[in-house]
């Protein structure tokens, strides 16, 4: 199939609703047709150009004020249309949600982050998505709204496979909600690519909650090593409730590397990803522990 990345060959009707209600009506009207949401376009337009993704309607949600907000009062609530670069500039994100900050900073380039959105990154559901491991690690949720009502789904449950989510044809993500962080918690993000501005060979977010020198709760989330970001639940099980030590971390990294299902692809190999998983889990756990106020 031949491509032409100079143009957008597909024909579609472009709609730019000005209110959330307008957008929901459009989605409702077209739920049996093909309609797609345009936020940043950095995934959608690329897919249209490279794999001939078609759509009859394109609904631009970036001009909707209800989707353009950031609320830092209780945890973090980010509107679906907020560009990634605006999120990375929020002080609370840098200080309290460093895994998300680092995950966003690791993406592509500034221009792409000026266009792309966190909701878009989630909905595109690439196994290599960089915001997803941090969001899962923080227990984030997406709010889905339609004419029928609204529901919240954890990011972890929202993505089901490569490019697959539980979103329904008439639904729109309006915001991403991240719970407030416990003050004795720490988090970290890690990513390996061929160059810095790259799709991940492997990426990772770790969240730890500390009580004295015991890890009370933890999440270890790896991306690019399965059809979607996965939690290394057995590794987490080894860590939860235990005194954190270098030898325990060593056990955890080994377990985590056994839980992932990487593939050979153009970016890297099964062998490499499996080896590297151990290294980055170790580094991220140590950093997260330190950020949680812990010592080794």
């Amino acid at each position: 199939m031949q491509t032409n990345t100079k143009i957008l060959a597909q024909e579609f009707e472009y709609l730019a609703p000005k209110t959330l209600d307008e957008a929901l009506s459009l989605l409702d009207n077209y739920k049996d047709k093909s309609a797609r949401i345009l936020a940043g376009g950095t995934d959608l337009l690329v897919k249209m150009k490279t794999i001939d993704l078609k759509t009859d309607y394109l609904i631009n949600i970036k001009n909707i004020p209800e989707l353009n907000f950031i609320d830092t009062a209780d945890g973090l609530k980010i509107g679906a249309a907020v560009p990634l670069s605006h999120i990375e500039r929020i002080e609370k994100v840098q200080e309290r949600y460093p895994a998300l900050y680092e995950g966003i900073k690791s993406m592509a380039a500034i221009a792409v982050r000026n266009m792309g959105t966190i909701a878009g990154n989630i909905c595109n559901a690439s196994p290599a998505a960089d915001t997803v491991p941090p969001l899962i690690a923080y227990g984030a949720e997406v709010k889905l709204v339609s004419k029928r009502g609204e529901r919240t789904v954890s990011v972890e449950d929202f993505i089901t496979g490569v490019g697959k989510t539980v979103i329904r044809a008439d639904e729109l993500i309006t915001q991403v909600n991240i719970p407030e962080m416990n003050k004795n918690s720490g988090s970290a993000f890690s990513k390996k690519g061929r160059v810095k501005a790259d799709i991940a060979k492997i990426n990772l977010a770790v969240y730890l909650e500390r009580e004295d020198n015991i890890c009370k709760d933890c999440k270890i989330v790896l991306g690019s090593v399965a059809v979607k970001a996965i939690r290394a639940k057995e590794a987490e099980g080894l860590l939860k409730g235990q005194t954190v030590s270098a030898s325990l971390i060593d056990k955890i990294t080994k377990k985590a590397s056994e839980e992932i299902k990487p593939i050979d692809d153009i970016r890297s190999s099964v062998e490499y990803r499996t080896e590297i998983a151990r290294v980055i889990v170790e580094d991220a756990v140590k950093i997260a522990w330190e950020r949680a106020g812990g010592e080794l």
Partner: protein
Amino acid sequence: MKKVEIEFTINGKKTKLFVKSNTLLINVIRNELYLTGDKYGCGIGECGACTVLINGEPVLSCLTLAADVDGKEITTIEGLAEGDKLHPMQKAFLENAAVQCGFCTPGMILTATALLKENPNPTEDEIKDYMRGNICRCTGYIQIVKAIESCAEGGKSEPI
């Protein structure tokens, strides 16, 4: 396919156009407004050659629908100089041998001006990180970094 009416400002000039829904901003800028400083490098957001400023922020025109710029302010490389007076960043690129084939240059300069607006005195690492999405095959980047440094607050203004 219906045409969409858009009204926007480009390089300070108010412009009204009818565009198809699937028309890309890069093609409007290049083929209808004849501002060919906006270059096609890859079409998929990987090289930065098509960078323009929308409301002051660097954005990739190859992945932007023309319809989406309604009500916005666009700056292309042609809009940087004030008449005959070059923008300091343009001068710095010339003086620091930061221009070879020149194809990446418009995108580089625009991104660099946005960097200094946001961070007037960046470290070398910060410059490199901000510019990492603008690919250059000719220069190896070092002279570009030096050009940007020379424009920064307290930057040395003589060439290397």
